[in-house]
């Protein structure tokens, strides 16, 4: 989902149309507040990207970015700034602080969309990594121990010996782990936690 934050309706509409022409879902926000109220709730599985106009009445683009940073959302919500002439140094500064990119107006629309797609991919990966972490968090301590040994490539018997538990128990843990991590095979699990 592309989040377009701009006080100009015509800009929001034209950019949304542009995004749709590239098969990207887009949503416009008339003000920074309107966006911040809904930011990250929820995240899009396809990835998120924020197009921020630097110059806006009220809260400007940089302030919005700062709030997102403070809330730790910039990994899931990569920010691309749209700057006017003369705002470049400010934009470069935000870039150093973790903004995804900036485009100086006037810009090539399809170049912008290319970067938006890249940002969406980054956001998506970040979302997946976050999901894996969330699944890992559901494992019990014993399950984590079993998981680590499985990832180390140990057989069930070796795991049972090492942990001093029965083969049967290991198999139960293993089934629970696969279930909680939403994988079917050890190879798949290893790929997830790579």
């Amino acid at each position: 989902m592309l989040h377009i934050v701009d006080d100009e309706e015509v800009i929001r509409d034209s950019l949304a149309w542009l995004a749709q022409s590239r098969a990207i879902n887009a949503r416009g926000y008339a003000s920074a507040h309107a966006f911040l109220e809904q930011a990250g709730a929820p995240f899009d599985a396809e990835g998120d990207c924020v197009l921020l106009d630097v110059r806006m009445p009220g809260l400007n683009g940089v302030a919005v970015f700062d709030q997102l940073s403070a809330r730790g959302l910039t990994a899931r919500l990569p920010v691309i700034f749209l700057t006017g002439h003369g705002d470049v140094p400010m934009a470069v500064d935000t870039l150093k602080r973790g903004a995804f990119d900036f485009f100086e107006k006037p810009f090539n629309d399809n170049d912008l969309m290319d970067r938006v797609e890249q940002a969406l991919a980054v956001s998506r990966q970040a979302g997946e990594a976050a999901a894996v972490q969330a699944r890992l968090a559901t494992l019990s301590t014993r399950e984590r121990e079993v998981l680590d040994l499985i990832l180390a490539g140990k057989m069930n018997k070796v795991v049972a010996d090492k942990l001093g538990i029965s083969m049967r128990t290991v198999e139960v843990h293993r089934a629970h782990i696969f279930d909680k991590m939403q994988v079917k095979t050890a190879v798949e699990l290893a790929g997830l936690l790579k």
Partner: protein
Amino acid sequence: MKSPFAPPRPIHLGTPWRWLLPVLLVLLFLAVLLWLPWQARQMESNERQEQLIADTLWVEQTIRLELTRNEDALDALRADLVANSLSGAAVQERLAQMLKNGHELQRVLWLDARGRALASSPPGLPAGPALAPDSGGAAQLARDTGNGRYSDPAPATAHGGALMNYHLPIFSGEHYLGSLVATYNLKTLLDETVPWWFAQDNAISLLADDKIVAQRAAAGMGRGVYTHKRPLDLPGASIVLATDSVKSAPRLLPNLLVGSVILLALGLLLSLGALWRDVARRLAAEDALRQQMAFRTAMENSLVTGLRARDLEGRVTYVNPAFCQIVGLPAEELVGKVPPMAYWAPEVMDEYQQRFASVLAGTATPQFETVFQRSDGQRIPVLIFEAPLIGSDGRQTGWMGSILDISDRKRAEDLNRQQQEKLQASARLATMGEISSMLAHELNQPLAAISSYTTGALNVLGRAVGSGAPLDAALLKPALEQASAQAQRAGQIIRSVHEFVKKREPERQQISVQNLVDGIRALIELQARKFFVAIQTHIPPDLPPVSADRMMLEQVLLNLTRNAIEAMAGVAPARRILRIAAAFENGQVTVSVIDRGHGIEPDVAERLFSPFFSTKAEGMGMGLSICRSAIEFHGGTLSHSANPEGGTIFKFALPGQPTPA
């Protein structure tokens, strides 16, 4: 640097030695002056004393001679008596003779051995002892010795004068026969023997046992200053002749000569004192003058204003350090030189020569600006004030000039002007910038939107072509409609900005050219004053009014006058005249702005009214273009032509409306 005045050298007001000698001389002179009269007095005194002694000796001699004569006469008589050759009458005769010859003799007696008087002169002998008792001793001694003896003088009697006897014993063999006794009146003796001229000056006394027994003091008593005593050395009697001059001691300043010398000396001292005071005053004045000189020299050296003195022939007689610094030459290379001077810049040589000629003629411009050339070739703008140099006798001896280096001032003025120009230019640029940034901002939105819509549409088209799927017109239509709407919006923005720049609708009204010029005269004069331009206006009173927007016409006129004034910045001040002339020609009111500046080159003239063309470094090139638009807006024309007197004429013509007669 070398000063034309003597360098102030330290002086010591009188070393002790310088004053010791005259003081010593004066002291010596005074000592001699004091000593001389004293010495003169001493000499005079000695001389008088010696004179007195000599005279006294003389008197003594005279007295002794007289006494000796009488002794001799008595001796002769005695001899005759011893020879017994005389009768009594003859003796009497001899005695009388003696008395007659010697007035000092009061009496002469002939006594027998028993002391009785045998004969006497004058006659009428005193009975009884013929002699005073004290004379008896002398008589006895004379009888014992056989020689004549004098008795001590007897005190003065009523007859006057003390008496003294001379006893001469008469012996015939061993037989004492008697004696001859002559009685002297000592007073008479003195009267007779002392000459009058001596008596005139001296009191003469005869003293016996320090008592006065006879005295002659015709001229009064002696003063006891010059005295002499001389014993008469008579056998038997100790009588002293004492003289005492009536003259007092000589006065200390007896004569005119010494007096006048002293007077002169006093005068000398006085004048010496006066001289000394005068010298001291002169020294003090010199000292003050020297201090004043030092003060002035310090003042001249500390000045940043150059000072240059020239004589009537233009020869430099003095320069101060500041002047040397201005022209970069040492004083030695300036003083004594005649024009052309080393610091005259070649390009303004004519001006110098002209001015120098007027200086020679005795008239100098009191204040003027010119340019000097430093020794390193740098030009220095200077402001010079000239004033006649008047000597102590009131006649002019030359010219004194003070020279101010005004490069700093010029620089500051130039800088100020440049900054002013820059400010104006940047103000213009700022306005342009505001307009352009407003335009950019306003246009960015629709242009960006159009770009996004069309890009999106192209994406859709590209995908459809790529996939071969049928084109969904319904999908594309709203986007293209939006793009079109945004394009129209952009056009509106540009129109509105134009409106904003124009600010307002022109407002036509009836305006007289006189009124128009009067309204902005102050502004024109403000510009003109900056460039020392004079303004002349020629506007006929019967000129018809024009129908125009006042503000636009004012802008046009201001623009033209400013161009004209700036065009004359580089010409001679005398030529800087701006003329505004109005006329009514062929149904049109024309206004000409005439300058006498640098004129317009042909290639410039072609592009004169093109926008963004400017001959000025900081010009926007909008002025004349706008002017022409404004005039054409009013149905008029703006043209230019070369001024036959040099410079340019800009003329605009507007349809006039002659007032109905």
